């Protein structure tokens, strides 16, 4: 008889591994990809393809020639970063800018910290913010999507996003009601389905929620961050709206417009850069929700999701240290 294998317990393992989690996230993004291609045409597919290819390429070249370590290109994490980066840029972005974004995401935000699991910030968001600050014009000229049942593809006209219309109008002294009633404003239903201007992957709340539900039932994400994030953003914007509905956008519109749903379910929940204990995750979510509304309402940019999440990413180590899970046997025994 050959020798017996000996190792410490446990001798069985659960079914999840890093690969299955990463590919699960990719599957969850498929509905949003379809919606995007429907509204923005093949341009959306082009952006996603280039972004993914560039991310995989940079992982490969860095691991092979710079780190000279093992190749982990097929673990799915670069794929997720690639799709998420594409989701965060307009569908008419020039190819070279997408490649620069991928280089920043993978090279600076991820590999320089040690690769998978070591990055303090969400790589795709670092890439997006880098592009937004470096190329503000290209990053904020959004193709107008075609109407829901219109034939053909979009005619490459650019226009502002839902939040952009509101921000500019409010700065010009108009009231929210006036702006929402104006022609060209997408409205709740279109924001829900995805017929609004915006980045490749953020336009359709329904498609993103479908993916989020999939991740929740596959146990890839937990409820803590999304509930805390949307809850605090909803309550904060709700209070402002109650104070002055003419000056502040109502909370439902805040939820549907811009990158809220994408950010809440796909980027704030990024396990690498978010806190570990349930209590810490709640704190993280509440903080991100408040910051998002703060930036949207008083900041220079119409959208605040990426900045809010990145700022909270910076707090993650501190939150991990301050909010520990409840230890068993910590409370005095009840009699």
């Amino acid at each position: 008889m050959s020798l017996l294998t000996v190792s410490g317990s446990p001798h069985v393992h659960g079914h999840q591994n890093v690969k299955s989690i990463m590919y699960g996230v990719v599957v969850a993004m498929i509905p949003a990809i379809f919606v995007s291609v429907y509204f923005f045409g093949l341009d959306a597919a082009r952006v996603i393809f280039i972004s993914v290819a560039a991310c995989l390429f940079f992982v490969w070249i860095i691991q092979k020639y710079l780190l000279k370590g093992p190749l982990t290109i097929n673990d799915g994490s670069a794929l997720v970063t690639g799709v998420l980066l594409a989701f965060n840029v307009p569908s008419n972005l020039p190819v070279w800018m997408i490649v620069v974004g991928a280089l920043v995401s993978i090279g600076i935000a991820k590999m320089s910290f040690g690769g998978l699991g070591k990055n303090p910030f969400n790589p795709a968001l670092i890439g997006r913010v880098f592009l937004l600050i470096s190329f503000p014009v290209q990053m904020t000229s959004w193709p107008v999507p075609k109407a829901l049942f219109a034939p053909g593809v979009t005619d490459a006209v650019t226009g502002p996003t839902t939040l952009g219309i509101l921000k500019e109008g409010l700065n010009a002294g108009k009231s929210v009601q006036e702006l929402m009633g104006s022609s060209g404003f997408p409205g709740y239903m279109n924001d829900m389905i995805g017929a609004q201007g915006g980045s490749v992957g953020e336009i359709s709340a329904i498609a993103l929620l479908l993916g989020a539900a999939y991740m929740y039932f596959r146990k890839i994400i937990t409820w803590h961050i999304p509930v805390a994030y949307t809850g605090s953003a909803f309550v904060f914007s709700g209070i402002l709206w109650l104070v002055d509905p003419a000056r502040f956008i109502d909370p439902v519109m805040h939820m549907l417009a811009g990158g809220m749903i994408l950010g809440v379910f796909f980027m704030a929940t990024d396990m690498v850069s978010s806190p570990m204990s349930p209590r810490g995750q709640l704190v993280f979510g509440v903080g991100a929700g408040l910051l998002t509304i703060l930036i949207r309402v008083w900041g220079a940019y119409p959208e605040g999701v990426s900045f809010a999440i990145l700022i909270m990413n910076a707090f993650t180590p501190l939150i991990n240290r301050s909010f520990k899970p409840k230890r068993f046997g910590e409370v005095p025994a009840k009699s």
Partner: protein
Amino acid sequence: MKTFKSGGVHPEENKLSAGAAIEALPLPEKVFIPVSQSLGAPSKLIVEKGAVVKTGQLLAKGEAFISSNVHSSVSGKVSRIEEITDTSGYRRTAVVIDVEGDEWDGQIDCSREIKAEITLSREEIVKKINEMGVVGLGGATFPSHVKLMVPEGKKAENLLINGVECEPYLTSDHRLMLERSREMLIGIQILMKGQDVKKAYIGIEKNKPDAIDHLKKLAAEYPGIEVVPLKVKYPQGGEKQLIKAITGREVPSGKLPIEVGCVVNNVGTALAVYEAVQKNKPLFERVVTVTGKSLKKPSNLLVRIGTPVNKLIDFAGGLPGDTGKVINGGPMMGKALTTLEVPVVKGTSGILVMPEKESKRMPVVNCIRCARCISVCPMGLEPVLLAQLSENQMFENAENERILDCIECGSCHFTCPAGRPLLDYLRLGKNKVGIIIRNRGKK
């Protein structure tokens, strides 16, 4: 449905031998009886080479407060006293006996009838359990008589009987609850009397509905004994988790169950107590599950202590050709054996034969900080942090993060998507922290 609140996992149950009635394994030609088979101080050997012994005769005496007697499981001649490798992988002294016939010690009541009336007093019960070498059969092998002696100033209110058997594959407790239920219930009554408690709860997980129904029916005849069905969740058989599940009480960190008025005993222990007190029978045999996916005949065997493990596997159809690993115990907490010559001891609840393709660990990749280890830890610890501290030899920090609370259930390693050997590092850390604390006491 009751269960413990935080953490826990649900591994595949694989209770292959659940339907196999208990069979007595034929006596081997030789038994190897380790002199120390319980937690606590080693027992003192009282036989010499060449001695002729009967089944049930005392071989080694437990003299310290926490130690236990060891008896011969067969009749025959002591051929050698030598160092052997035991199930824990350590070299230990064992008595080797060449089996001749099966002559039982005269004091043992060999009759099959069930003796329900408890005539012994509280003190006599404790003494008898000590004498008969009864230890906890759930796996920890804590001497049972010590559990009965409640420390000064404490009061036991509840006796909890552990019939959870949350380890995958294992079914020995399940079969005992079905086949030896009356004796077990009397054993529980004896424990109640020994501890002076009025209430006993038998915790059984929902995946054993036949045992729950059967014991519920019988328990009606025994006042104070209640069957509590529990949701299936590992590690519910852990002492602290079981207390939490049944009574809602939390044993404070670093304290014993008696702190919250509870004492926990395994169902197998209850049966051993019955046999010791009512039948004068020392603990020299136990039921062992022999199981595995490739094994021809997964079985539950009544085995004499000291029988080499390979005899059990032979009886269950022989070692399958694709065997990669053999485990003493269940797949979550059991120990991998280095050889099949090791003898069955009091703490052996099962022998699991695993095929080669399931024997290797998955490749380790970077931690992705998914925090699954934290969410499954039944003790509310942060395994990822503790493993990191151990890896970096920051043992004082690990102590402050309560590494000693770890019950080594393995849920963290089981669930880690990166395949990181979390429990390996936690064991290392616990060990080092233990040494640090002991040295601190010496100063």
